[in-house]
Each structure stands twice: as structure tokens, then as C-alpha cells.
């Protein structure tokens, strides 16, 4: 008895939500047919592919890398050092992700020809930033370790 009363609401859901989503799809559809007017297959591939690539490749990839790192540091009983590796690695990886076309040199020729600017140096500068990030992080860690050993020499005995 109770089941039959609740069921219709469960199947359809909130009317406000339906109306809102209906409006949203109408606008998305209006723009969408124009977005797909050209090479529709490629555009759909890019649109859906971006979400799939992010959710099923990028996220698992960096999550696995992070887990491997945590595991490795845990194995040598230095789990608390994780931030000193994770932060510079994440920042450097992000810069590579965003500026990949320039760093990898895949647009070198067009960039040089179009802008009259040198396309060299993007890789070198990214490596330099990466070195500074890891170097700075190592320095902070060294300072922390030194302070910790100074503060509690007796507890080690």
C-alpha cells in the first residue's frame, strides 16, 4: 500500500527540477545544434572525450601516482614527508599540463613564424621552475628535520 503511494514520486522526481532541466536542455540544444553544425562527430568526441579523459584517465593516473608515493614513503616510515614531494610535483605537473603545447615544442614553428618570438626556452623555463619548486621543498624539509633533531635529542635514546 505504502509502496504504491511513494512510487510515482520516486520515478518522476521533483517537478521544479524537471522544469529547470527542461529549460537548460532547450538552451543547450539551441546552442548545441550550432556547435555541431560543422564536424559534428569530432566535436562530440572532444566534448565527451574531455570528460572521459579527465575522469577515467587523468584522475586515476594522478591518484595512483599519489598512492604509490604515499606507499613508498610509508615503507621507509617517512609518511609525514608526503607534502614535500606532493606539492612541487603537483605544481610542476599542472604547469606541464596547461602549457604542454609550448613546453613540448609541438607548436614551435607556428609560434616563431606568427609572433616573431623565440619558441625556445619554454622547456628550459619549465624545468627551472620545477627545479626551484623541488629545491625549495627540499630546503624546507631539511630545515624541519634539523630543527626536529635539535629539539628532541633525548627522545631518540
Amino acid at each position: 500500500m505504502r509502496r504504491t503511494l511513494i512510487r510515482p514520486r520516486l520515478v518522476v522526481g521533483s517537478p521544479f527540477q524537471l522544469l529547470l532541466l527542461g529549460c537548460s536542455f532547450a538552451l543547450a540544444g539551441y546552442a548545441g545544434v550550432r556547435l555541431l553544425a560543422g564536424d559534428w562527430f569530432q566535436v562530440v568526441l572532444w566534448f565527451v572525450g574531455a570528460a572521459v579523459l579527465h575522469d577515467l584517465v587523468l584522475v586515476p593516473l594522478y591518484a595512483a601516482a599519489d598512492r604509490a608515493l604515499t606507499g613508498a614513503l610509508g615503507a621507509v616510515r617517512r609518511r609525514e614527508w608526503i607534502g614535500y614531494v606532493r606539492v612541487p610535483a603537483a605544481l610542476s605537473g599542472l604547469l606541464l599540463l596547461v602549457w604542454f603545447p609550448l613546453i613540448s615544442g609541438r607548436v614551435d614553428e607556428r609560434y616563431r613564424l606568427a609572433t616573431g618570438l623565440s619558441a625556445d626556452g619554454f622547456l628550459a623555463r619549465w624545468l627551472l621552475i620545477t627545479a626551484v619548486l623541488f629545491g625549495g621543498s627540499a630546503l624546507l624539509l631539511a630545515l624541519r628535520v634539523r630543527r626536529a633533531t635539535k629539539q628532541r635529542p633525548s627522545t631518540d635514546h
Partner: protein
Amino acid sequence: MRDLRLPSSPGFWRSPLRGPRFTAVLGIVLLVGITVLFVTGLLSYAAYNPNLSPVNDQTPDKGILGFYLFSWPTNPYWLYRLNQGVHVTLGITLIPVLLAKLWSVVPRLFTLPPARSLAHALERISLLLLVGGALFQFTTGVLNVQLDYVFPGSFYTLHFYGAWVFFAAFVAHVALKLPTALRNLRRLRAEKAEKPENAEKPEDSDLVTPRPAEPTVSRRGAFGLVGGASLLLFATSVGRNFDGPLRQTALLTPHGGPEPGSGPGGFQINKTAAYAGIDTRETTGDTWQLVVTGRTGDVRLSREDLLRLPLHSAALPIACVEGWSTSDQWWRGVRLRDLAALVGYDDPADVLVESLQRRGAFRRAALRANQVADPRSLLALDVNGEPLTLDHGYPARIIVPAAPGVLNTKWVARMTFGDL
């Protein structure tokens, strides 16, 4: 209990960081940031005056999506520079926030059953448009500013219609989620103020893992990482909107680093003469002639003729849709309204400007009467006290206050005044 090895099981996701509060903070930042991106994007579109002439319009099928278009003003003269600087620099800065937000809600992608109701099923389809749309917009934008044209079609078309598809899903998502996010933020504040009586269980707590791993970073630390990443991207990008030492700070961005040369013409170039396929035989003093057409017929002017007309100066920047700009350059040339008067238009008229450039978008561009009428709008012959360099449009180029870079046609060959 479902199999913990499957991502559809809540226990599969173990980060103690995930939860409604983490998501709510990132969501509010994106709400504000993406709204600014959308508005500046629409303004940038209007800045091209797409309704003026088909040559300005990369999206002629826009229909009602162009409902808000207006005559782009020439004041303040740095309007497009600011608008586009904000649009691109903010977009780059928001990338870490977007990635963190998507990470925080990724377990939802795998939720089973796929739909509890029709509304829920539609909401999940809408989320595909939201996530796919956000990534599509950020990816096309980031690739375009690096001149990596691998996307399937014209950037203008993809980024404009893509923005509307994304925005449709974005508005629905905000309407559905904002009340929850705000309530969760209020709880977060109450929790901070150590009023445990207010610290109830937050909504959307399905994001909280039932099987938390040992924490390796605090929530504050995670916000610090996201904010730090945004700051790093901002600090290495924002300098591309200024000449000189500030540009050197834009370490990884296109049009960052050193200027393309020294001297009066040593400022940023959008497309060089070589890239545009300009034949120097057509630009020399003997062969080049500007053809100005209007009510009274054609007038042909050599560079020498132009230099004998009243010359005026204007300090104006070059600002590109790609989100880089130069500081003000000192241009000198003939006022566009004087050229209009030369062919019988004493009242302001629109103008179609054609370049020697043979290929590429915007080798022809239209300017509106209000742009022609502005006393700072010039057919420039000199810049910073010297004749234009070939890469900056020698023998003559257009410069108009507040107009997008590509409407400032270089290597001008013909100007046709009148109704377009």
C-alpha cells in the same frame, strides 16, 4: 555491502578530504569565477561588432544568442585590453580550482543505481554537459592561446557555442546546488567559530567516505595547495599584459618573456608579415597605393600623399583575443574621419577595411561609425616616432581605441566608407 574494489562502492573512495564542505568552497569560487568568464566572453564577442558585417562574424547562425549585442564603444580606450586580460588570465588561474572541484565529486560519476528518478537521470545527463562543457571550454581556450589549433573547427565557433551549451548546464547546476552549498558553508563557519550546537551533519554527505584513509593533508592544507597552484599560474601569466620587465615574469605563457625586438617597433606582434603572406613588392613606396572609396568615388593615395594630410597622434594599446596586450604605443597617422570626409562622408559612416593579406580570417574587417568618428582612430603611418615596421603593418594600419587586435587591420590596401 558492495565490492570495495569497484568505484561504484562508496568505500572505494578513501580520501578523508572529500566532503560537502570542500566541494562547497570550491563550488562558490567557481560560481563567481565562471560567471566573470562568461560575461567577459560575451563582451569580447560583442567587441567584434558581429552584427555590423559578415566579415566580422564568425558565427552567422547565432540567432537569439546574439540578443544582447550592442555597438562596441571606444571608451575607455583600454576596455578590450582589460576585458580580455581578465577573461584569459582568470581562466588560466581557475584551472586548479576546476580540477580540484572535479576531483572532489568524482565518486558521484560512478554512483549506482544510475538514476533514482526521471529528474535524477536528467540531472546526470546535464552533468555530462557541465563537466564536458567546462573541460571543452578550458581546453579550447588554453590551446588557442598557444596557437595549437588541433580542435575540430574554428575557435570562435567552438568557444562561443560551447560556452552557451556549458552555461545552460551551469545555470541548472547552480540553481540545484547553490542552496546546499551555502548551507554547508554556514555550517563550516559555525564549526570554525566552535559552536558545536550548530555543527550538524552537512547535506550531500554521500561525498564523505565511509572508510577514510589516514589523512595526509588537512583541508586547510588542500585549499592551500589549490590556491598556491592558482597563484603560480596567475603569477606566470599576468605579465603578458604589460610591456617591459613585467612581461619577463610571464615565464611559460605565449607572448611572455622578451619583446620581439628593440627600438620603436619592438613590441608584441600578433601575426608577422611572413606569416600573413605579405609580399614586400606590394608594400614598397612605388607600388603601394591606398584606395579610399565613398560617396564621391575613389581616391588613391600613396604613403607620401597620406603623410601630407593632417597627422594626429594617439597613445593606444594592442589587445588580442588571446589575452595578451601591449602597453600604450604612440601612433601617428591620418584620422579615419578625415579619410571619410575625403570621400564625401562628413557625417560618421561605417567602413570596410581590406588588407594586402591574401589568406586568414580578418584580412577584411568592418568598423562602425562610432569607431570611425573617434578622434583617436587612425590610419597609422608611424609608431613611437618611426615609420611602422613591416610586421606592424607598413605602409599603413588601422588603430582604434578599445577594439580587439584583429580589427586593427595591418597592411591596409582599401577602405570603403558607407553602409556595409
